[in-house]
């Protein structure tokens, strides 16, 4: 039996859903219905099954109804019509007591903006679900410790959540959902608020956890790369309707209609072939407080002839070369700030490959990838660029 069955599920936001429902049957679009009745079609006739142990991704543009569909599954949003079965049990028919019971035992949820409780420690955040269930303190703390260890936060149990970085906060969110050992994890754009590189780490981490724990995961995202990376199957949504369900392979090679095809094309072109897609993690950098000796040692260790310099909050300051550092050390001055060459090639994460090639060709330094606040997100070296171009070629062959 399927772990989760969603049957003809409909959600219409507004006071008079019957009328809107009639109009959907006449084939009117979401936009037309809104103009006519003021009702919003959230989810329309969603119908699918998810097997135990599967990662099922719900993907679509913003406003396509992903969050609504996810919240219909644990009934944070009341459906207008249709059924949801979890382990064969009809959750849409459950009374308050039963519903809470199912949420406590079987459903964990992770939120886009983390939704951690700022007045609780990391440990008490992770233990929240168990506390709600009335598990006594010793036991719930034991389980919360374990969950935190699982997501790589051992040693942070007694910190304030506000002290943690975004990636770490979402680990707490994940630990909170895992601590009560639910069968199903509902994840609403869980990694969308994170930096691209941290997002990749978290995706790996989730896959890793999944291989150990074998949960059923319903994962909402608007990012096709993410969907392809972690999904066993992907449901693509548009205007509240599920337009295609399939494995990543099926979606890429066999788009069900124009919409899916465009989506796939768009995302493919704009993601794989951008700075973000080919950059390397900037883990070999020095900060302005480091001296030239340290910079030199790091460069020697990694076999580099130049190295990026950032401020302590990772804002890009420029680059220093090995030659300059040798000079400085020989002449005995220690302030790295005077050696920085501020004028380095910079691009934003969404810069196209075509625009990066000339930069790399003209400059003797690698290209820095920075966000709007000038924070260093990644580094592109010649080798990575070549690899990106190979990948482009490969993908096109595959699609043809």
């Amino acid at each position: 039996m399927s772990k989760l069955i969603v049957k003809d599920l409909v959600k219409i936001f507004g006071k008079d859903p019957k009328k809107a429902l009639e109009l959907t049957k006449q084939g009117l679009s979401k936009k037309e219905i809104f103009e006519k009745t003021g009702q919003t079609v959230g989810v329309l006739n969603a119908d699918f099954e998810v097997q135990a142990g599967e990662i099922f991704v719900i993907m679509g543009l913003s406003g396509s109804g992903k969050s609504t569909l996810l919240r219909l599954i644990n009934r944070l949003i009341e459906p207008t019509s249709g059924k949801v079965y979890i382990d064969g049990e009809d959750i849409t028919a459950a009374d308050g007591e039963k519903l809470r019971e199912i949420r406590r035992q079987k459903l964990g949820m992770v939120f886009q903006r983390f939704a951690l409780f700022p007045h609780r420690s990391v440990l008490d955040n992770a233990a929240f679900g168990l506390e709600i269930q009335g598990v006594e303190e010793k036991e719930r703390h034991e389980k919360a410790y374990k969950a935190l260890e699982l997501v790589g936060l051992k040693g942070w149990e007694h910190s304030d959540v506000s002290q943690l970085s975004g990636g770490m906060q979402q680990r707490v969110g994940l630990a909170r959902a895992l601590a009560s050992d639910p069968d199903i994890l509902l994840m609403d754009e869980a990694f969308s608020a994170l930096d691209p590189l941290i997002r990749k780490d978290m995706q790996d981490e989730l896959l890793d956890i999944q291989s150990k724990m074998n949960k059923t995961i319903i994962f909402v995202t608007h990012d096709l790369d993410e969907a392809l990376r972690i999904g066993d199957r992907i449901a693509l949504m548009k205007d509240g309707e599920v337009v295609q369900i399939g494995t990543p392979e099926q979606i890429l090679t066999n788009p069900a209609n124009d919409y899916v095809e465009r989506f796939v094309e768009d995302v493919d072109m704009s993601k794989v072939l951008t700075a973000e897609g080919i950059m390397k993690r900037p883990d070999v950098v020095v900060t302005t407080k480091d001296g030239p000796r340290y910079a030199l040692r790091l460069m020697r260790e990694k076999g580099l002839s130049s190295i990026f310099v950032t401020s302590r909050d990772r804002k890009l300051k420029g680059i220093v070369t090995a030659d300059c550092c040798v000079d400085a050390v020989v002449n005995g001055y220690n302030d790295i700030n005077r050696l920085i060459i501020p004028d380095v090639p910079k691009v934003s994460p969404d810069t196209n490959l075509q625009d990066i090639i000339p930069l790399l060709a003209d400059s003797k330094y690698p290209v820095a990838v920075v966000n709007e606040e000038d924070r260093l997100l990644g580094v592109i070296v010649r080798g990575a660029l070549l690899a990106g171009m190979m990948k482009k070629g490969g993908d096109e062959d595959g699609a043809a």
Partner: protein
Amino acid sequence: MVLPKIPIGDTVAWLVDAADEYFGWLFDFITDVINFLVGNFTDLLIGMPPLIFIAIVALIGWRLAGIKVAIGSVLGLFLIWNMDMWKPAMETISLVVIATVISLIISIPLGIATARSDMVHRLVMPVLDFMQTMPPFVYLVPVVILFAIGNVPGLIATVVFAMPPAIRLTGLGIRQVPKDLVEAAEAFGATEGQKLVKVQLPLAMPTIMAGVNQCILLALSMVVIAAMVGVGGLGGMVLRGIQRLDVGMGFEAGLSIVIIAIILDRVTQKIGGKRKTTT
């Protein structure tokens, strides 16, 4: 043409009379309870040696608001003692504390109710507007008719006057709790009560404490008006100072009120502030 006068005033007067006639027993009962509370608490405060009282206040001030507030409180209280205003000051503190406690017992649950139900919110808000714009003298009159002169009408008028900000700020604080946190609590299967106690109230606490602070200060600001219906204490001294044109006494009593106000304000403000930084 002369428009007939709508008999609003007569109606209210008639209502008050009727209430007095049919519910007199209830008002007598309320009077007894309040007199019992205020009487005993006042006796306790007056009976306590001033030094002990000052030590207790210093300790509370120190624990809740830091050493500066504690020192300020001690100096202020010594000044009150020195001005020979100790006994009326204790009477005033007793009344203000009891009025505040009663206000909060009513306001906080009511504030929570306004946050949880739009219906209650829509009903209560106009009443609060009414309470806050109506000069206290206006409801002092019917209250005196129902409860006779003394501590009781003063206390009731004070409670009415001090409640609105506590209700408003409690409701506001709870409504301001981020929606996704409430949603998270629900997603993990929290009951309504758990949601309130474990998420909404703790996160609303700084705002609720601001309401408590307002409530105390408004209660204190009523002492002179309450003196007009027979409440003693510092308000009575101020009033007597005015009536007898005794500027010195009026000023000393007024200064004592200000000192008490500052102590209460600093201590309760810091409680709210302290929570704010940890949340």
